[in-house]
């Protein structure tokens, strides 16, 4: 209940910031647009060449679940710090864990909804563009697992990195730039996917998933430690 109140307040506030609106409204459309354009360009290629093309297009949908939470995570912590709202917030019955979870959800939920939303749009567009529909073997299980299975862990990773960095950074611009570190875990699939093109197999998705889960658990631990009242009041500057 208090969690919901916190999350709704954050969104009401965050979506009034231009930079946030830009990355949450414009970037997803841009990414889906790029992906669609690639497919459009390759619509006359033979089916076996279209597979790699789709794989490359997929990458755009793995950037979104990292980019959006990084932006939201930084602003939701920096915003409280700059406005000095942490003290009254901490004086309420909100628990430390609720605050931490609330801030994480604020960043993760829109990222996933937007990623999956524009992914749906992209598939619809492909159906219209490709005379023969989506080529055989492209919309494979590993492909779908990447989009639907890996992205929540990526989004959580990016949100936690952003929140932890901005809780410590004394300057919001520095925080925003450092939060770019959150793209590291997508660089891995980026390299692998582009090196091996079509061969996105289940083993790879499971490996990437395992790494992300381990990173997320470590960051959750650090986050819960950092989001303690005393810590916030005394050390966050």
């Amino acid at each position, binding site marked *: 209940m*208090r969690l919901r109140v916190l999350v709704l*307040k954050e969104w*009401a506030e965050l979506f009034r910031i231009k930079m946030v609106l830009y990355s949450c409204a414009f970037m997803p459309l841009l990414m889906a647009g790029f992906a669609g354009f690639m497919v459009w360009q390759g619509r006359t290629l033979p089916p076996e060449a279209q597979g790699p093309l789709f794989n490359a297009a997929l990458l755009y949908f793995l950037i979104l679940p990292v980019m959006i939470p990084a932006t939201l995570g930084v602003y939701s912590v920096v915003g409280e710090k700059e406005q000095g709202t942490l003290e*009254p*917030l901490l*004086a*309420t019955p909100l628990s430390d864990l609720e605050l931490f979870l609330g801030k994480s959800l604020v960043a993760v939920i829109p990222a996933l909804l937007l990623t999956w939303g524009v992914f749906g749009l992209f598939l619809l567009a492909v159906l219209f563009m490709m005379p023969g529909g989506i080529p055989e073997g492209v919309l494979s299980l590993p492909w779908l697992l990447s989009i639907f299975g890996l992205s929540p862990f990526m989004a959580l990773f990016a949100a936690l990195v952003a929140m932890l960095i901005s809780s410590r950074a004394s300057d919001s611009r520095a925080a925003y730039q450092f939060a770019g570190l959150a793209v590291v875990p997508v660089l891995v699939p980026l390299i692998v996917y582009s090196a091996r093109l079509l061969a996105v197999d289940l083993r790879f998705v499971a490996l990437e998933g395992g790494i992300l889960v381990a990173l997320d658990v470590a960051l959750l631990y650090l986050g819960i430690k950092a989001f303690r009242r005393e810590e916030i*009041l*005394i050390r966050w500057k």
Partner: protein
Amino acid sequence: MIQTLGLTRRYGERVAVEDLTLEVKAGEVLGLLGPNGAGKTTTVRMLAGLLAPSAGEAYVAGHRVTREPEKVRPRVGVVPENPGLYKRLTVRQNLRFFAELYGVGDPRRVEEALALVGLAERAEEPVATLSKGLRQRLALARALVHDPPVLLLDEPTSGLDPEAAKEVRDLLAELSLAHRAILLCTHNLAEAERLCHRIAVLKTRLLAVGAPAELKARLFGRRIVVTLARPAPGLPQVLNLPFVRSASLDGAKLFVAVEEPERHNPLLVRRLVELGAEILYVEEEERTLEEVYLELVEGDRAA
């Protein structure tokens, strides 16, 4: 309602508050005075369940801040040093948000709190467009929205114009009548004197606590000021009365500490007239709270 026992807080090596023992009863306003860095804000934070004491204990609204801070927080309203409002949200959104976090379901409470601080007409404006004083009032509304029995106010009238400050003071006076315990940190001594039933002077340690009149009497004793028509050097030395504890002359003003003014003043006046003094006024010396405060704080520095 508020009781502290040997409350102490250290930040690393630095002691911010040391061995503070205080009580604020329901219906009482206690003024917490002290120089910058005296530990007022630290005290408020400990009582609000925000900072753990390094030693000692405090009971706030029936709960221990060390054991059950989560039970203390809903029963306390805090106006922190910095109002800390969401500038992009409107006045009403800000207040609704905090009301909901405090579990206040009834939206009418929000409207009442807004009306109480005179912000009902500006409820739809973003906080960014409010002046400093109006923000301070919104912070006060936020501290009141869940109707807490304990109020902790860290300089709530700083930055307000005289009229707004008076409104806030009148409001605080009313709130204390409703059996709330109020701790008011302030640098405004006139405000403390007008509003607070008792005053505590803090400088890391508690230097003194008591009603303003009590502190004045305790620190300075009661003195009579006799204003003469012209300076009369040597007069204190020739007074020669058994009940006069001390006497001194400052220009045409004679300061005399007598044991019991009600009994001894007439005798003093008769003696002065005998000595040929021309008396214009006789009055009891008015000490200001400022003098009390400075005496305590500077006395502590000398010690």
